[in-house]
């Protein structure tokens, strides 16, 4: 299978590349630690053009998107954005996304961002349900039209201010505006995946290089993106949820706050039932107390060696200097300071549960 290429491939110099969600993307420019620290302390830029972009417009754009995402799309004013899950009939998360109600002057009404490689499937899902429900809306997969750059870190606002005439202080968290970045018509949203202040910039692929090169800060790859999001306890598609390998509901994945049960959406009834009954397992943070690095798939046991679950993602936290992980555990363990073990190469390693985010943000 040929990997999809970012419009920025060839612009940046000598990154280490990796396949991710059907795309070939930079995993590391300098070192994960260097890039991670830049974002926590100053600013870093990420090419996230592998993320999907699907627009939904027309008289029933709101109803269609409302019925296919867990959050309350009706609560969005123009220029607002929200995080949401996309669930199946059983309430199982098949994707997570940010839904934007685009600013009034935009050509499209709504934009949502499926995960890497999910753009085709999600476009199809919207089209199929539109037709099944007899709704009137235009659904367009614009993933090949948009480049996406994330600028993250405490200095991101001053960095971006130099490249736009817009007063960025007017853009609140989870708000999106149409503006220019280095003269390039772009959508700028105060969103991100790192826990730091920052922006995500959507611009036409033909002008992606102008935007990327204008941002004068540390280029960062998917490696640092992963350590940054993991310190925040943010979910990664394919790790913390996957329809086949890790079927989880928003309540299990600890994103129950994205579920608006007073709206009508696919999976709503199953989730209402689970909201009443409670969950058996829940996503929790772990800190390893012994030496080692917990990684995806490693077994988690109780102190007597009985299996409780497995690590969904883990790393050595560059900020904290300790090994951290996410795992689904029985709810009895879903509180901090419970003793568990992570089995690394056959050896049980002492760990304890921790609240997420792992860092203060």
């Amino acid at each position, binding site marked *: 299978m040929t990997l999809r290429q970012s419009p920025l491939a060839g612009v940046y110099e000598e990154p280490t590349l990796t396949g991710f969600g059907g795309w070939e993307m930079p995993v590391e420019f300098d*070192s*994960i*630690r260097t890039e991670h620290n830049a974002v926590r302390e100053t600013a870093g830029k990420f090419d996230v053009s592998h993320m999907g972009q699907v627009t939904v417009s027309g008289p029933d754009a709101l109803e269609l998107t409302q019925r296919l995402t867990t959050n309350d799309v009706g609560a969005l004013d123009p220029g607002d954005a929200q995080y949401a899950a996309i669930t199946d009939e059983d309430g199982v998360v098949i994707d997570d996304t940010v839904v934007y109600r685009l600013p009034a002057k935009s050509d499209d009404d709504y934009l949502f961002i499926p995960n890497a490689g999910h753009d085709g499937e999600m476009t199809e899902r919207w089209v199929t349900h539109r037709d099944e429900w007899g709704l009137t809306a235009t659904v367009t997969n614009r993933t090949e039209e948009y480049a996406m750059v994330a600028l993250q870190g405490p200095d991101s606002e001053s960095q971006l201010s130099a490249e736009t005439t817009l007063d960025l202080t007017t853009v609140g968290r989870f708000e999106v505006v149409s503006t220019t970045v280095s003269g390039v018509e772009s959508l700028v949203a105060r969103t991100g995946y790192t826990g730091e202040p920052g922006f995500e910039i959507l611009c036409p692929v033909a002008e992606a290089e102008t935007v990327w090169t204008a941002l004068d800060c540390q280029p960062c790859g998917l*490696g640092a993106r992963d*350590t940054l999001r993991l310190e925040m306890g943010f979910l990664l598609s394919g790790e913390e949820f996957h329809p086949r390998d890790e079927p989880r509901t928003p309540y299990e994945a600890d994103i129950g706050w994205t579920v608006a049960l007073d709206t009508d959406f696919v999976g709503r009834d199953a989730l209402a039932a689970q909201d009443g009954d409670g969950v058996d397992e829940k996503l929790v943070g772990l800190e390893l107390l012994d*030496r080692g*690095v917990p990684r995806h798939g490693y077994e988690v046991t109780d102190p007597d060696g009985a299996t409780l679950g497995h690590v969904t993602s883990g790393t*050595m936290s560059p900020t904290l200097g300790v090994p951290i992980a996410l795992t689904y555990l029985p709810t009895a363990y879903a509180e901090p300071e419970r003793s568990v073990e992570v089995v690394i190469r056959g050896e049980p390693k002492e760990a304890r549960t921790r609240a997420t985010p792992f860092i203060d943000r």
Partner: protein
Amino acid sequence: MSFDVPEDLRYLESHEWVSTDDDTARVGITDFAQDELGDVVFVELPAESDELAAGEEFGVVESIKAVSDIYAPVSGTVTAVNEALFDQPELVNEDPFDDGWMLEVELSDESELAELLDAAAYRDQIE
């Protein structure tokens, strides 16, 4: 990108190096290997007096992004372990051929050294 490949060392295809002084060998991983792994955060090594067999794994090096087995270039008895790596695993990145060394081994069969790659052959492999 070009990597340091000291002329006076011998190499394994799996990116370990060995230097010899009489019947003692010092072992580590190469500049190329540390760069591929990225930020090393943890090194698991055998204990002194453990026996190594050439070609068999003797430890593990973990970076933020990957975990990799380390293979013994030679057979013998471990006589020293670089304990500095337990607190400063980043030495493997910073100085892979010197402060980032991993083990010293008393060779049980010096003829094994002839089986290893010389610098030119290893350089050909990674370039």
